């Protein structure tokens, strides 16, 4: 088998393994909760938990029915089975099924992440590489200064600054995902959700005004997320391109009389891309945290809505509502793993060692 395929297969196999470890750990924590309390996870839809008291016979029958006194492995496998079948439970506070709720919000999050990535990945690579190529220059010092500020300023401070300047001060960009007028248009003209991404659906439906409106709403959250991540990518790129530039083959390339630009972009960057991608994979979890934070702050109702609604309403009415939290946890790990997988695929595309042998065989 060609090495690229082997590499990807091994990476694909890691997804279920990691998911198993995480879900097993999660359910081990769930097991610390007494069965009477866990029975609330299985309340039939539309039963108001406020009506169910601790000594309610319904709880005892739920414990019987769902084997809540069985040993851990039995219960864990049962829960896992229901997860696989798509039964992620019912959120008492949000009054919705958890999985459909999460899935309905997914395109919003994907759209935000997509535009932010299109900004920070190339720009981060560019500034990091240029800084490394001109090590010690004023440009390098400038980039280093800005990136160290960028990694130190918390994302929520950046978001608040953005809102203060562009929303309150200049009134350039609005909050939310789409304006009310566009929402009315979408309701009236039989707007087809082909992809769920409003910027693309607007074009597909022949309504560029909706695309523009969605882009205007995307600007602040996407830029905030991009700035926070750009600093990280730029720093990583600078480190590894710098490392490559110190190697012998670069001296050889210079000796052959290649132009500086060729040496950097064709030789150094190409080799640096592999460690850049593997190191970036380590910060995916923090990327997702920032992504959720940005959604919350800019009223961008993405996946994070699920737990925000659930937590705020549950806190308000004092209900015990762990189903959306658990579902959200599993889903988030899945998202993180998917982003890591995309980075792995990119690695196959750029790593000559994996690719060239693939071409020859």
């Amino acid at each position, binding site marked *: 088998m060609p090495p690229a395929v082997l590499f990807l297969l091994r990476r694909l196999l890691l997804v279920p393994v990691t998911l198993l470890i995480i879900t097993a750990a999660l359910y081990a924590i769930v097991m610390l909760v007494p069965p009477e309390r866990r029975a609330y996870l299985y309340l039939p839809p539309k039963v108001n938990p406020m009506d169910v008291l601790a000594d309610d016979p319904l709880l005892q029958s739920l414990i019987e029915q769902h084997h809540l006194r069985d040993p851990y492995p039995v219960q864990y496998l049962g829960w896992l089975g229901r997860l696989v079948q798509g039964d992620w439970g019912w959120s008492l506070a949000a009054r919705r099924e958890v999985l459909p709720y999460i899935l309905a919000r997914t395109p919003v999050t994907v759209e935000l992440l997509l535009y932010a990535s299109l900004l920070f990945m190339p720009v981060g690579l560019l500034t990091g590489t240029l800084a490394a190529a001109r090590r010690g220059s004023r440009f390098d010092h400038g980039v280093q200064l800005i990136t160290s500020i960028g990694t130190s300023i918390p994302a929520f*401070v950046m978001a608040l600054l953005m809102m203060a300047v562009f929303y309150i001060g200049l009134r350039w960009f609005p909050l939310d995902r789409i304006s009310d007028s566009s929402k009315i248009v979408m309701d009236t003209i039989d707007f087809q959700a082909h992809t769920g991404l409003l910027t693309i659906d607007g074009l597909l439906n022949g309504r560029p005004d909706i695309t523009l409106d969605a882009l205007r709403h995307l600007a602040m959250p996407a830029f905030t997320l991009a700035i926070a991540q750009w600093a990280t990518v730029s720093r990583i790129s600078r480190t590894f391109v710098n490392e490559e530039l110190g190697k012998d083959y670069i001296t050889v390339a210079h000796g052959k009389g290649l132009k500086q630009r060729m040496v950097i972009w064709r030789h150094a960057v190409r080799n640096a891309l592999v460690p850049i991608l593997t190191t970036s994979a380590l910060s995916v979890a923090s990327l997702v945290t920032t992504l959720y934070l940005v959604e919350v702050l800019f009223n961008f109702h993405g996946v994070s809505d699920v737990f925000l609604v659930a937590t705020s309403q549950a806190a308000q009415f*004092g209900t015990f509502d762990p189903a959306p939290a658990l579902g959200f946890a599993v889903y988030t790990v899945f998202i993180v793993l998917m982003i890591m997988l995309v980075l792995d695929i990119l690695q196959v595309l750029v790593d000559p060692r994996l690719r060239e042998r693939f071409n020859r065989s």
Partner: protein
Amino acid sequence: MNFLRRLAYTLRRLFSRSQSVIAALIIAAFTLAALAAPVLSPPRDPRQPPGLKIVGRQSIGVPQPPTADLRLGTTSEQYDVFHALVWGARNALRLGFVVAIVSAVIGTLVGSISGYAGGWLNGIAMRLSDAFLAFPAVIGVLVFTRLFYTDSPEWMVPPTPIPGLLADLGLNPVMVTLMTFSWMPYARLSNATIQQIKHADYVLAARSVGARPRRILFRHLLPNISAPLIVLMARDMGGLVILDAAFSFFQLGGTVEWGQLLASNRSWLLGANGNPLTYWWMAVPFTVALILFGVAWSMLGEGLNEALNPRSRR
């Protein structure tokens, strides 16, 4: 004596950089504020949690500007901003230290033992840390608080003993979750370095005179890998406090007052009538404190890295 001389040498190298001096001064200022908090801003009611102090009538509901008496005004809930700033330093330092130390100990134990043993144990430990790396800490707090902490009355939902147990240990859910999700970098780092140096001659020498694995690991190997771990701890300090503030914005009960009050006054921070600086006395102190705290610790981490790294020795 030897240890003291090495410490003095490291400190001299550390403070030969002006950045490290600035970072240390900022951290010293936070530490002083934390220690002197009861003097700088005495709590009004000793039975209340000390970090927040209500001044004036809560029914006002609007942030009050600074006066001669209240040096930094109040938030919309009429909490004294100066009071929260000073006491927040206390909570920030405590959160950072406790979490960084505990997660460093856990991570180093997991990483070094598995690295020294090698084989399947190493495989399991590294798979485990990879899996935890894919799990954002926010989600951990979410699950943990949703499962164990609810406002439901006891007659309605049976209680669990977990919150009481943690409170006895002086921990809160945020600290526990941060510990659970911060040990992986330490494990990876110690694992990689132990594997590099475990075949060194001095390890072979120790083994040939009959030293047990535990003695080799704790007396010979760990002291040699402690420098990068200390650097990592210094870098973590700021990040942990900022993450805690982010928890406040997620309404997940962040513990440091800076983040708490920023999050609860979110709508006020944007100002009024198109002027974002209307309520500057709330926004500026807390954000500046958070940024300075983060920057100072990461600058100190950089400096320690230079000072402790033998390869950068001039």
